[in-house]
Structure formats: C-alpha cells, structure tokens
C-alpha cells in the first residue's frame, strides 16, 4: 500500500473509511488523485471476525464503546444531559465502518421519498423538506453500487419499488423459515411480500465466494467476504491503485483552515496518541451522522467561531434515527433462525405515508431473527416469562429455535431540536468533548410506529403463532445504528449545510458525504448513502480536474 508523508499535500483527505468513505477512496484514487483515509478504528481482517458474541456485542470490538466514547442524552434542551450506561447511537469503528457489521439490508429509496414535503406538506414541529435531487439523479449510482459491491435481490418482486435501469446482479438468498411464514401470512392478508434485497452474495461474484449461511451477519464481520462491505470490495481496489493510503487507528480531532477559509488538512491522534497534521488540497468528511457534525463543531477557529461549515447553526441538527417497534412470534416447529442471513422477506405495503391516517409516517416490515444465544437468553422470551430458574431454562431451551421477530423500519421526522452537540463537561478517552445527544421522537413518529406494530401483530396472527408479544421501548430499539440528517443537503444555504453535490455551503474545499447528508430518514440508509457517495465522487473528481475546488 502506498504511504504518504503527513507533510505531503495529498489531493484528498477522507475522514472515515466506512460505507461512504471506502467508496470515495476507491473512486477518487481510480480517477488518478492521491488520497489518504483516516480511520479512527483498527484495520481488522477476515481472520478477526470470529463467531464470538461477547467480543462483538458486549465488548464492542467493531463499534464505539461507552468507556472510550461516552455519550450523554437528554430528551430536550431544557433538561440536563445524563451520561448513559447503554449506547444510544452506535457506529462502525474499523476500516469498512458500519458496512462490515451491518445486517446488509439494501433498500433503495422510492421516487416519492425525494419530494415528501411537496407531497405531504409541512408537519408541525418538524423540518420536513424535499431533497435537492431526484430519484432519477441517483438511479445510475444505485445501479453502480449494486453492481460494484454485489447485491442479491429480485427486481420487480416488490410491486411498489421505483423503476430501475438494471436488475440486481445476483438472485435472492435462499428463503428461511421466517420468510416462508411471513410470505404466507402477508399474502393471506392481501399484502405483497418480496425477497429482501441484501448486500450479501447469493452466488460467487467478482472473485468473492457466496454466503455459507453461518448466521453471523448482524453485528459481526463476514469471515468469508460474502457480505459486500467496503472492506471486502472497494477498499482493496483503492489500495491497488497505488494512490490511496488507508491509515487506521487515526482519530481526527480538528479540521484546519487558512485565512481564506479554505481547509488545509486535519490534525489527528495516531495509534500512540501523538498529534499529526496531514496536509490536503480538499477534505471529504465521511465519519457518519454522529461523528461528522461532532468533528465540525470541534473545528472552531476565529473565522468559524461556531464550528466549521456552521454559519447558519444547523450542523448537528435534524438528527434522525431508525424507528420501529418489534413484535415476536413463537411457532410449533423449529425455525432455526440462527442459521443464514438475518432476513429474507419484507413488505413495503405501508411504506408511503397515507394522509388518511392523520399523521405523517410510513415504513417497511421484515421477518428476521436478531438474536444470538446469550442475547436470546437475556431478552428473547415473552415478557410474562420467568427470568431465571428451571422453568426459564426450559423455555429458553424450547424457544430459541422457534422464535422469530417482525421488525418495522419506520420514518423518523427531522426536527431541529434533535441534535448532536458537544457535551460541556464529559470528555472521551482522547480528552475531546463527548457526544451529547438531544433526541425524542415526534408524536407522529410514535403514532406511525404504533400503526405498524398493529400490522406486525396481524401478520403474526395470520401466521398462527402460538404466542405473540411486543417490545415498545420509549425510544425504540437501542442502540440506534442509522444516524442521519445532521448536515442536511439542500439548495438554500440558510436551511442546509451541504449543497446538492455535498459541498459545504461555507467552505469550497470541504465535502460531507455520509448519513449526515440525508434530508429525510431512509428506513434502510446504507444503500442510499453509498449511491450518494458514488454520485458525489463523480462530481468531485470532475470539479478537481477543472481545478474548481
């Protein structure tokens, strides 16, 4: 791998080697530019991705850890933020980022997603807005991502999906028992189940082997490279160009600017906590919907006293997360849901917000199993079951192979009061301000989650589950992995942070490309984040060639 000296001015400095950063690295280095990618986490390889539930779910081997990266939380700005024991926001923290440990759901947005404000009007208390781009603008890049990364699915099986210029490059993964049960029940109810599109290979593809159905996808890395993470796909391509260096264990603390207000590079802590300044002509921030605004807010200077790219005060605001409740069903015969990928069937029948409901919101529902042995024993039994002892043990023994989950993937309205800010008191392991989250769902979000939960229960009833129970936690399923909206994209510099090509309105050579750019919540954001990255890279490379950055 090419190595650059920090004093060498590279064409692009990318911060964050995740779902978006990996694509920026590959696209820009392939286009002939020199690229350094700073990643705060380690460079793990396939041999590190053991089937070890404790290591990956309890000890956070691939995600932020509350001892290293504490978070404080409050529901509104009027309350004091409290240090949390449990994570509210979770993000991938190694080369490949969240694309390594994600479940690999890969849903495109609908055409209508880009014009929600025009279609549904304003929602009181929310900042619902149209995107500055359309589905047609993004479609070629959705297609490019599916082809280059490797996505399994069946075009046209979802009657509601928007047009696509090409089918999925790979057929769907084999259906599991949860998928068979879900498909029968939803069809009986007149709904339209379809094979879940997944960024996991159902067949060998471009030198990578197919999924072996070991069952360790969600919160784990794939040991055979069948999951189409950026670690398994574009990052090796970037390194092969000889123009890209991935620098792990490098935790950025500040983006530096010159007197003209242009970015000159970034200061980071290396693995030995030494401060290093990497010089660059332009900077692309792909650190996720939580770390991107945090770094901008930490990058205060005399020219940008409110934080970088934050003259309108919107950096960190409009935080949106994954919404949706869980319903569970117990079945007579073994499903063995611990095998293979987490989910194989979904519906989009309730995806588009319906004005007749009297609130704004919609979403998809899928059948899945989110448990591993210990997490199931901890919390997988019905709420009225005992919590220990002989009867509990017998229920865990019987239910583990017979339980499935229906999970809703719901909209989350953008609200200015939901935000990422710097905690004034709490510091992280590097001595930097901890992330302070201010978040509560909009009343419409809760109405929508309740509506979807009623549909989830109906499906389980139609499936003749022996027992049905639900989880309706106040702030939905924790931790939240979909971190969106905190540097929203728009044409108007007064109401957005980046323009339609992800360039900061305030800083000509600074781009934010990740979940922070999203204008409305994507029920499954990774597919759209990656399509946006391909589109941004295309534009940014063109601008750099014209010396227009």
């Amino acid at each position, binding site marked *: 791998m090419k190595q650059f000296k920090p004093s060498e001015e590279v064409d692009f400095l990318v911060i964050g080697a995740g779902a978006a950063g990996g694509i920026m690295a590959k696209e820009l280095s392939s286009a002939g530019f020199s690229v350094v990618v700073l990643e705060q986490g380690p460079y793990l*390889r*396939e*041999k590190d991705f*053991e*089937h*070890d*539930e*404790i*290591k990956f779910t*309890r*000890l956070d081997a691939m995600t932020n850890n509350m001892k290293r990266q504490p978070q404080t939380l409050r529901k509104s700005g009027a309350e004091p933020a409290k240090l949390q024991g449990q994570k509210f926001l979770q993000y991938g923290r190694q080369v490949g980022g969240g694309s390594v440990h994600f479940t690999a759901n890969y849903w495109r947005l609908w055409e209508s997603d880009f014009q929600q404000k025009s279609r549904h009007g304003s929602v009181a208390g929310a900042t619902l807005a149209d995107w500055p781009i359309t589905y047609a603008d993004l479609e070629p890049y959705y297609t490019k991502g599916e082809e280059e990364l490797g996505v399994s699915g069946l075009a046209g099986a979802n009657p509601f999906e928007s047009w696509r210029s090409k089918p999925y490059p790979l057929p769907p993964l*084999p*259906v*599991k*028992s949860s*998928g*068979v*049960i879900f498909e*029968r029940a939803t069809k009986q109810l007149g709904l339209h189940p379809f094979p879940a599109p997944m960024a996991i290979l159902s067949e060998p593809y471009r030198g990578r082997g197919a999924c*072996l*159905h*070991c*069952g360790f996808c969600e919160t784990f890395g794939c*040991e*055979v490279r069948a999951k189409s993470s950026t670690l398994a796909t574009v990052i090796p391509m970037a390194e092969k160009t000889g123009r890209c260096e991935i620098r792990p264990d490098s935790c950025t603390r500040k983006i530096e600017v010159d007197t003209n207000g242009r970015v000159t590079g970034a200061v980071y802590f290396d693995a030995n906590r030494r401060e290093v300044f990497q010089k660059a002509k332009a900077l692309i921030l792909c650190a996720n919907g939580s770390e991107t605004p945090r770094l901008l807010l930490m990058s205060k200077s005399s020219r940008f006293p409110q934080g970088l790219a934050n003259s309108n005060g919107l950096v960190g605001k409009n935080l949106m997360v994954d919404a949706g409740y869980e319903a569970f069903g117990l*079945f007579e*015969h*073994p*499903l*063995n*849901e*611990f*095998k*293979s990928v987490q989910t194989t069937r979904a519906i989009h029948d309730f995806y588009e917000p319906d004005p007749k409901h009297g609130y704004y919101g919609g979403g998809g529902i899928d059948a899945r199993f989110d448990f591993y*042995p*210990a997490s*199931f*024993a*901890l919390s997988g039994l019905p709420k009225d079951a005992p*919590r*220990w*002892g*002989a009867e509990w*043990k017998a229920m*865990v*023994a019987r239910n*583990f*192979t017979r339980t499935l989950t229906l999970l809703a993937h719901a909209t989350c309205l953008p609200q200015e009061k939901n935000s990422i800010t710097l905690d004034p008191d709490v510091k992280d392991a590097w001595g930097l301000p901890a992330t302070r989250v201010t978040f509560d769902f909009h009343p419409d979000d809760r109405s929508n989650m309740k509506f979807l939960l009623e549909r989830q229960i109906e499906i389980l009833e139609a499936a003749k589950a022996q027992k049905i129970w639900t989880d309706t936690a106040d702030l939905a399923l924790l931790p939240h992995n979909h971190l969106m909206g905190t540097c929203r994209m728009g044409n108007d510099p007064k109401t957005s942070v980046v323009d339609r090509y992800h360039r900061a309105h305030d800083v000509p050579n600074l781009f934010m490309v990740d979940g922070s750019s999203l204008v409305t919540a994507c029920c499954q954001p990774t597919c759209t984040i990656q399509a946006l990255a391909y589109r941004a890279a295309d534009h940014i490379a063109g601008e750099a060639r014209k010396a227009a950055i």
Partner: protein
Amino acid sequence: MPDELISRRQWFALVPMSAAVLAAQQHAHDIMRAAKPAALTVLSSEEAQEIEAITSQIIPTDDSPGAREAGVIHFIDRALATFDSDKRALYTEGMKQTEATRLELFPNSKSIAALQPAEQIRLLEAIDKTEFFDLLRTHTILGFFGNPSYGGNRDLVGWKLIGFEDRFQFSPPFGYYDAEPRQ
C-alpha cells in the same frame, strides 16, 4: 465442532496468521480442554462458592447441565479480572447485601451454599429486583451461552441445551417451514 474448527482453519490457511493470534487461539483451546478448572484470580474460594450457589439457581442443573457444570464461576472470575474489572465493587457490595438478606430469612444459616435448594430459591426471589442480581444474571447467561474461550460454556453445554450450532457453513433447508414442499 472439531470438524468446523478444521474447515475454518483450512480457510485461513490462505491468510498468514500472526504468532499472537495463534498463541491466543492455543490458549483458548487449552482452557476449553483443561480437565481441572483454572485457578481463580479475583474471587476467593469462599466468595466463589457463594456466588456459584446463586448462579446454580439462575441456571439450575436438572436433566441437563446447569451453570455449575458450564463453569460459569470461572467466566465471572475472568470477567472481573478483565473487561468488567470496574464491577468488582458492585459484586462485593452485592454479596454483602445478599448475605445479610440470607440471615434475615434464615437466621441460623451458615452460608448460601449450605442452604437447601428451596431456601436458595426463596433468597433469589428476595433479591431478584436488585441491580446486583441483574448483573449476576447477565454474567451467568454470558458465561453459560457465550463463547467457551471465556472460561464458561464448557463442553458447549449452553449451546447444546438450545439447539444452537456454531458452524462455518449451513445449507438450506434451515428449518421446518422452509423444508416443507412449496405451495
């Protein structure tokens, strides 16, 4: 499991492994195979006996192995020595309170371990809403159902109980419903 270990190793024969990784794997392997329990590092044998008496009612031994046979106490000892070292004080305080509750319920008793099973269950019912019990329950479950390399789940008793198999590869059909003839 041995077959799967081999196939995973075959897979990674393609990947050069560092000496540290190999040593760590060997260490885990040795512990899994150890005929005698590893020595305790944080807990005294008296503390371990009392804690084990509680964990053995959380996951009792009946027609299948329980927390005791799984070596849960060794998982807890190691957790308190390593990744949960900050929870030692909670254990010390929690056990002090639990012993006090034992004396309230059974004034002439000598220890939790010496109580009759029905008395131990009564004691657990008296403490099962406490923060300490939640932690102990979590540790017991992690020790019983977690990866054996942490000192618990000996002979994979936790995984065998629930029908979980840690394999490198499965083939469809995976369960009863996807094996039925398609309609």
